[in-house]
């Protein structure tokens, strides 16, 4: 079961920088490690993260096998207008999770 924690301001002043912090539960199996039976475990990682702020992509990240389990991503973006902020993680084996926070700009 995938779970995610998102910390973003509910309200912000126009022009202000907002810090968005995210944490998602994921094993991030590298694809290089042998399991208990000696066989290499298949890769299972998140490959892509994107943040859409009111329909516009404001932050995107590519993740690689060296990223730790449960990746934490934090970034800043400027508050321009009220709207939904859609955070999407995509990865191997069809993994996809979306979290949405509504941001009100005063």
């Amino acid at each position, binding site marked *: *079961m995938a*779970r*995610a*924690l*998102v*910390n973003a301001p509910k309200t912000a002043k126009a022009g202000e920088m907002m810090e968005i*912090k*995210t*944490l*998602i*539960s994921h*094993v*991030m199996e590298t694809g290089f490690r042998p399991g208990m039976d000696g066989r290499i475990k298949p890769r299972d990682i998140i490959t892509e993260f994107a943040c859409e702020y009111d329909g516009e992509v404001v932050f995107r990240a590519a993740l690689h096998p060296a990223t*730790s*389990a*449960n990746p*934490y991503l934090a970034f800043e973006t400027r508050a321009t207008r009220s709207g939904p902020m859609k955070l999407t993680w995509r990865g191997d084996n069809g993994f996809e999770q979306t979290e949405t926070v509504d941001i009100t700009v005063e």
Partner: protein
Amino acid sequence: MSASTQAMQRDDVQNPGMLAAGQGEALWNAQPPGGGQSCASCHGDATASMKGVAARYPAFDEATRRPIDLQDRIRACNARRPGAPDMPHESEELVALSAYVGLQSRGTPTAPDPDPRLAPFRARGQALFERPIGQLNLSCAACHDARAGGRLAGALIPQGHPNGYPLYRLEWQGMGSLQRRLRNCMTGVRAEAPPFGAPDFVELELYLQSRAAPLAVETPAVRP
């Protein structure tokens, strides 16, 4: 513990243990398939009913006349609950649920159960702590009492306090209970570790808890 690890533990969005606590909250409120009682059906809102509970575990169990730790208490409760999921020791569900219960005591000083019937078990835990084991012939006390603050192959030797369990360990890239950590140390000194839930572990936990009091509970903590 480095400043960055401490900062990671303090910030609930950075602390990966909070993911487990979140899963534990869902399990707390989840009804078994086909209806029946959830944890919340009897115990209500955990933020009120479980406040301070983890700070006094392991406690004396009337049914078995022995000390029982929090994970075994949850398992015993599940065994009486019709349709409840089976949660083996160290399973993701059990660790998550105990992390959620532990979270309700965060900040509460560790308070050992004063029940006098626990005294012989606590004494046995202390004896286990001081007994050299394994091919390296080291006791817990040899490192965690005598050399705490020193270094073992570059890693800081901690005082061995159990007030943050279950916790997220960076080395594990995951959550684990105190028993998992104790097994780690036992394997490290090349001793044979008892299975999860063994009486030895509960007695050790009991002694460690009295040794750590009154440190505040930090569950879910982050450790290197």
